[in-house]
């Protein structure tokens, strides 16, 4: 806690990435841009998880022909793996919905979607 903030640059990058994504989700009107925003948030969270697992001077937690030394924490890496696959699934579903929305309303603008019947 007492160390200078400069050491926390990876975390600040994560925060910026998440905020960038959130900005796109809240203020952009294009459906594809909203989807991109969500994937940006997701990348930010994944990056955060990976960053948490790093120890200074550590190597990958694999014993096969390892050079020796302290190893990085393996659990965040496993969690990131899970989170990436989840992200792919969510992305696939969102894009299919966007395709359908485009078919129905012939536009990607959020303001013009949701009105009308059938």
């Amino acid at each position: 806690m007492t160390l200078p903030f400069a050491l926390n640059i990876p975390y600040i990058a994560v925060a910026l990435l998440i905020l960038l994504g959130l900005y796109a989700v809240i203020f952009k009107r294009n459906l594809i841009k909203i989807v991109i925003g969500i994937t940006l948030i997701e990348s930010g969270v994944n990056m955060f998880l990976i960053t948490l697992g790093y120890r200074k001077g550590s190597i990958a937690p694999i014993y096969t022909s390892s050079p020796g030394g302290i190893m990085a924490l393996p659990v965040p890496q496993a969690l990131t793996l899970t989170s990436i696959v989840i992200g792919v699934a969510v992305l696939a579903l969102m894009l299919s919905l966007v395709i359908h929305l485009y078919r129905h309303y012939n536009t990607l603008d959020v303001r013009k979607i949701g009105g009308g019947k059938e």
Partner: protein
Amino acid sequence: MSKRELVGIVAFSIVAIFFVFTALMIHPFGSPPSDTNMDDYIIDNAQTETGANNAVTSVVFDYRGFDTLGEATILFTAVAGVILLFRRLKK
């Protein structure tokens, strides 16, 4: 400025403050808190308990195997969902 934008700006700035503060307050990069019991246990025992040289794989498929089942299920769900959405409707 519309109402929607105003609400958006307020929500965004609240969340922004949260995330920036988090980034500044969390422990310094590269030095996790002193007691990393869970991860150290896995690094020490991955080979003896699971027989895998790759500690990450031992976590993914053994220690947290149930998460991976969930993860595989999510992919299965997404495929089912996409097939459902693009199914042929009866005319």
